[in-house]
């Protein structure tokens, strides 16, 4: 079964050229954790959300591969971290978005979508395989909703067979 049935079309998106501050406001207003970022032709550029914001607040020595594994020896760092967030506000989303995010296509099997969400967290953007345009997103909720719908359909089918 492909995951196209679980797609949420017309998701909230961010646009290339928006600032981090604008997008934080958008995330807060819409009560969502991340948004796909697209260009003027609706081609997906990456994902941006609270994960990317927090990642950019970390010292570079903790963010890098083979870097620091713990920071619990740093006491009283909150004001410094807040300053970093303030510095991040005017940056364009293009500089901080996750361009390596995984994507699925409408015909990607549902199992694969489930695996990707379990491994990389929700949402997973769904793009057109040929032109990279954003078609929607797949989330934990949309997948569960789709599975519940299938259960209902199977139960209805069984009931009909029993009646028949």
């Amino acid at each position, binding site marked *: 079964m492909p995951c196209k049935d679980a797609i949420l079309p017309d998701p909230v998106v961010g646009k290339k050229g928006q600032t981090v501050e604008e997008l934080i406001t958008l995330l807060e207003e819409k009560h969502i954790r991340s948004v796909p970022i697209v260009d003027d032709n609706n081609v997906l550029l990456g994902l941006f959300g609270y994960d990317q914001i927090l990642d950019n607040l970390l010292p570079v*020595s903790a963010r*890098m591969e083979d870097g620091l594994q713990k920071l619990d020896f740093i006491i009283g760092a909150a004001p*410094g971290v807040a300053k970093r967030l303030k510095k991040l506000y005017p940056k364009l989303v293009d500089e901080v978005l996750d361009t390596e995010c995984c994507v699925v296509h409408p015909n990607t099997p549902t199992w694969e979508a489930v695996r990707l969400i379990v491994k990389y967290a929700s949402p997973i953007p769904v793009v057109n395989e040929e032109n990279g345009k954003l078609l929607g997103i797949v989330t934990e909720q949309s997948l569960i909703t789709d599975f519940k719908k299938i259960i209902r359909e199977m139960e209805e089918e069984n009931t009909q067979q029993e009646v028949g």
Partner: protein
Amino acid sequence: MEHAVHHAPEVLFGWEPVVVATTVLVASYAFIITEKINRAVVALLGAGALVFLGVLNHELVIQGIDFNTLFLLIGMMVIVGITKQSGVFQFVAILSAKMVRANPRLLLVSLALVTAVFSALLDNVTTVMLVVPITLLLTEQLKLKAYPFLFSQIFASNVGGMATLIGDPPNILIGSAVGLSFMDFVYNVGPASLLIMIFLLVFFDVVWGRKLETTNRARAHLLRYRPAEALEDKELLIKSMGVLALVLFGFIAGHDHGIMPGTVALSGAALLMLLDIYKFKPEVQSQKVHKAFGQVEWETIFFFLGLFVLVYGVEHTGLLEYLGEQLLAVTGGDLHTTGLVVIWSSAIISAIVDNIPFVATMIPMIESTSEVFGGEDALMPLWWALSLGACLGGNGSLIGASANVMVASFAERAGQRISFMKFLVLGFPLMIATNVIATIYFWFVLLP
């Protein structure tokens, strides 16, 4: 099978073994130097080629492999891999920053010293992998450029590593081939390492240290760090330190009883793994042991393995003996001149290419000159010359030693790229200066 093992090798098509072995060695070194193909793969392919072409057979391959070096490397890698989980290395680095009250000038000195001491007891790459991330954090906190700190740590790791048998791969190779003890290195090369380190600290202070400035606020923030929090597992720390102490004792005391450093290191690794796992169920034990062996840099181990076979192949054909004769022809068989040639050629060549294959090739070459100089004992100054030159030469360029490459890689990831030329402009003359100090020490202390 018996027949296959013991028959004398015959080179394919009747080719001259020395020509075949030299061609394979030169081709392998060319690939290793250009770094187009992974060095471990090149070394293994070269070693395989010597067997398939008939220069070596299975028996000779086994003879050529220095298992003591491999065991020493594997054992120490496992011990360090487990020990670092305790957080002790971060603890020491943070503690040293607090001890100098986050004064940038003193911090430059203290972190270089920490790097040098760690490098003497651990391998250099591991040392910089542990020290550089915390350095990047401290310099970011103090709003300082990381470059002076990283530069000084490259030098400190190579100079500190020079002081002991286990500190730098050239020493491991020399020590294992010649049967030198841990204390032989400490007594003979240690003072040179100390002298050069003092010179470097003064130099770094003049060039950078005096000009480093930060705000009181940034310092105050760093002084709030709690080093004890960096210690992740105090029980493991005690076990690790206990085993490390035993291993060091084994290196020192074992030599007189014929116990090789490789045996000591592997036994220490096994003991530490036992102490780390004995409380757990078999499944967890397997996971922990698997993780511990995962800490071994197998690429390095297989590189050494291939290299030993390659060099042995060439040695077996008599080429290195011939080169040794040529060396003596150049130096007129004079030990003093030969020592100078060894120390300077090692330094210059090690700055340009990986010093491990160079040292591996030089060892049998120097061994072949023992008759001329009056026996194996007379060769001792040459071994120290090789150690001094090869270890110090690694500082001559950004690709001179594996630790340099590792620091550069960290700097790049932190957005503070160290360019090859920028490092070379200061690094090469500074390496020459340290080699001058080493030469003076060699001349007055190590030569008879």
